């Protein structure tokens, strides 16, 4: 059986990878995927803990987070479409009309 610690570390790595992706990638689509990655890290953490505790709460919560991620993606993509319509780009750097 895989020790819980391994699961948690993997989850943390996923979370961090997502974080790095969010901060560094320039393409909005990839940035949003990175957010999903972070959420998956969270899911994995929950599941890891739940398994260690021998209960199902974590899994249940994960489902909720997946639903949540879907909703977020929907809203996010809608906004992205709106942006793309007005300025024909999905580069994060170019979305900086408002500053200072």
């Amino acid at each position, binding site marked *: 059986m895989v020790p819980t610690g391994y699961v948690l570390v993997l989850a943390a790595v996923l979370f961090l990878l997502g974080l790095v992706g969010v901060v560094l990638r320039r393409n909005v689509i990839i940035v*949003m995927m990175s957010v999903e990655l*972070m959420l998956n890290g969270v899911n994995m*953490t929950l599941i890891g803990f739940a398994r260690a*505790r021998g209960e199902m709460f974590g899994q249940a919560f994960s489902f909720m987070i997946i639903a949540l991620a879907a909703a*977020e993606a929907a809203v996010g993509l809608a906004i992205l479409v709106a*942006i793309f*319509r*007005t300025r024909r780009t999905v580069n994060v750097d170019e*979305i900086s009309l*408002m500053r200072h």
Partner: protein
Amino acid sequence: MSFSLNPADFVHLAPVLFLTVWACLVLLASAIGGGHGRHYGLLAILGLILSGLGVALSWVQHVQPATDLFAGMMVVDRFALFLDMIFIIAGILTALVADAYLEEHRFTEGEFFALLLLSISGMMMMVHAGDLVMFVIGLETMSLAIYALVASWPGQRRSAEAGFKYFLMGAVASAFLLYGIALLYGVTGTTNLAKLAGVINGKAGEPLVLVGMFMILGAMGFKVALVPFHMWTPDAYEGAPTPVTGFMAAAVKAAGFGALLRLVAGLFSADAWTFGSTGWINIFWVLSVLTMTIGNISALRQNNVKRMLAYSSIAHAGYLLIGVVVVGLDPSQMGAVLFYVVAYAVTTLGAFAVVAWIGSRDVERTTLEDWYGVAKHHPAVALAMMLFLFSLGGLPPTAGFFAKFYLFKAALSFDSPQMLTLVLIAIANSVVSMYYYLRPIVAMYFREGASAPKPLTSFSVYWVLGITSALVLILGMAPDATLAWAAQALMGG
């Protein structure tokens, strides 16, 4: 964990549920009815009023101790009910402004109001949450609706950009929040706030718990725009349609602070979490200083009134954080924070209503130059705006003054040099802030405008201005009733 559904719980939850259902009805109606016309706003307002009646009834009928619903998933206490009322009033006022605003700028209406109602129901869930899961659901319901509202102005680049920035940062913040919750769950095995509070006490030194806790607090800091999590605020506020901005400044901020108070005064209230060099009080002390200072000095030279008010909202978050620290020391001082929230909400709604009022036909006239000479052509609105600005700056006899005074009084009731320092810094900030609050007054009163502004003509905006300025004056001059309510709005009470 045994789980039994008590049908009576739904009665307590009725205002929230009702609002959610009503939102869906509005959406449905707009889908059927084509989305344009005045009736959606009125429909939304009707729903809010009905829900508000429910909340009021709940407040009057409320008996202590607080009621746990759905096995502790939600809790009904006067603290939450008080905030509910703020959301609903803010919602009504926003709907009134939006009604005129949307008509003028010609964009979809039905969805807008549905989203508004949804976000309010999310806020209500958030402050009623007795469990972190519920808390997340409420937060996300609110946030997703707000993201959509912010980006809801079709064809406006700023609106979409604002929505995007807010969304992306919100998503990351949500991830942080969830990760923090996951860690807390992992260490304690529960997400129920009450249970957590009992268990977590002995685990203050646990790295996982600490990381979890501060990830949650960081996410909340994002929601209420504390420095350094504030950077989305000016952009999102500037880009959003102005009624939405006002709503964000008033209601979202109130919800965020409500939730934050739930967390710090409920969950992390143990001494070991609170005090000492690594307790959250110290950290919030520093954040408070940073937030108000950076908010204020950034606002100094803003020529865009909307953006200036955005920075001002950051600064006010800093002042409110003083209240959070105070509540951390003495939970019975909750009234000071809540009164401040009310005063700020009312004032900022009024201020943004003026900002919404002045623009027309796809143009938001938000630079100071646009405001030149307003007082000459529209003295009443200028007077109201002056009132709001003085209230934001904390001059008597306005709500803002009394709120600030009450907050400082609460802070100074501890004879602690640290609190005194904090208050003095807040004082210095107030002076600085007065500089930029006076600038729109300068523009409106002291300058001559090249052309007369052509503001919104719909009467509903004037209703909002009337109501908010009356409230600003009433809260400033006859605050007794509100103070009494705020004083009763104790957590768990």
